[in-house]
């Protein structure tokens, strides 16, 4: 009886030590879940989800305070990726937060701009250049298409235009059930 208890106890202690050691020795530094979620968000920082930026939304998702379907710029593929990461069922985009649109970029009508800097203050990624009473312009490469600069403009000189597809960024269309013309006539 005693030997059995001793043997089992020793074994338990040994395995416990082994497990404890491997937990330290082979520790995997996982990305905290907030970072992983944040990585999947499109970083437009548009706030359409109801949070002030992508990271707060990621924190809210991680904390269970927000659903995964509140990000219109991410669209269905974004929801899909989040669902996969979190192991939940994907669901359609919540229409309350807006609709998914093609990538867009802000363009300032430089004739109308009065240089009020309101849009510069609104831009979440500092993609608008200009100073007080100087004409402003958007750095198209850095613009996330978040729309946040449109509302503050007192003279409505900012327009969101779809990003033009260049040769280098052109995508092959998804094949239809049968071959269809892949482009209309070029000229």
């Amino acid at each position, binding site marked *: 009886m005693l030997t059995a208890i001793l043997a089992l106890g020793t074994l338990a202690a040994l395995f416990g030590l082994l497990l404890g050691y491997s937990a330290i020795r082979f520790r995997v530094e996982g990305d905290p879940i907030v970072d992983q979620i944040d990585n999947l968000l499109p970083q437009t920082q548009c706030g359409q989800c109801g949070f002030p930026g992508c990271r707060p939304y990621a924190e809210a998702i991680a904390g269970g305070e927000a659903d995964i379907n509140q990000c219109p710029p991410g669209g269905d593929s974004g929801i899909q990726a989040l669902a996969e990461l979190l192991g939940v069922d994907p669901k359609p985009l919540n229409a309350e937060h807006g609709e998914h649109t093609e990538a867009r970029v802000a363009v300032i009508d430089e004739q109308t701009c009065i240089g009020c800097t309101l849009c510069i203050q609104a831009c979440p990624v500092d993609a608008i250049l200009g100073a007080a009473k100087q004409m402003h312009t958007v750095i198209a490469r850095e613009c996330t298409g978040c729309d946040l600069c449109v509302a503050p403009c007192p003279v409505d000189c900012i327009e969101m235009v779809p990003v033009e597809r260049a040769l280098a960024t052109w995508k*092959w269309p998804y*094949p239809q059930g049968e*071959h269809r*013309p*892949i*482009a209309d*006539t070029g000229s």
Partner: protein
Amino acid sequence: MDFPTQSSPYLPASNDVGQLMLRVSLALVPGALCLFWFFGWGVVFNLVLSALSAVLAEAAILALRGRPIRPALGDGSALLTGLLLALALPPLAPWWIPVLGAAFAIVVAKQLFGGLGYNPFNPAMVGFVVLIISFPLQMTLWPPPTGLHEGHALDLGETFRLIFSGATPDSHTLDSLTMATPLDSAKTQLGLDYTWSEIRAKPLYGGFAGYGWEWINLAYLAGGLWLWRKRVIQWQIPVALLGALGATALLFHIGDSDTFGSPLFHLFSGATMLGAFFIATDPVSAATTPRGRLYYGAGIGVLTYVIRTWGGYPDAIAFSVLLMNMAAPTIDYYTQPRVFGHRDK
């Protein structure tokens, strides 16, 4: 000038599903003729009933699913399913056996899974297994092969009446018109402690694998080789299947030649050749990688031997095929070929 556009390549297509299915159907002809020669008109009724109900079932369910009917029927896959099922059925089975089997194969095993290309199991074999489990009695109604029967060969009219109304010709009972197949009888007799050599001596066992059956299997073999030459099927599945079945049988036969049938008997009896060249090679439900096909074929071969020898049913091609169908996705996953320029997988 302006022109239409599309994605490459542009050459005329070299293959077509409909043509493949047609070739498989053509390759069945020698085997079907042999079957007809030895077992009579029932074979023809089975073929017609089964093919017809398969095609009708396909059309009906496509209409229900709101899919275009003509192109789907045009690929000939439903017809082929019907033919394959018919060739596996006992020739004197009542008319509703082929009808029910074919309809079940098409509706449940094929279309409910999404139609051609999406069915995980071989539809014809699903139909066959459903029949043999649900109606074991009707599934034994094999007449004796011509030349072996003592007494009566049914003519066209008699067969028609038997199949459609169950009426046997005067002075005959259903029992006197049917006879166990070699595989079936061998199983029973071995169970009764006869030795293999005693069993082999009976006329039912013919030259080497059962009277009639050896010719039928040879005819299927010929059709299968033609398919291989025409590159409709690849060699891996038939070779692995026949090799594994033959090798297993040989192993046990050498170990104890009294209790275990010879490899030749296993290779040329029952549905072996039909299964090896026409059923196991059904691309939709089989493994697709070259190495995977070897494992898949070998698995069917070994399972067939095991079920034939120790299982509850005389023939086992259908069960083995369905079992390996289940394993096909896993086999494919683990047998991916090494990709060009990769060191190893």
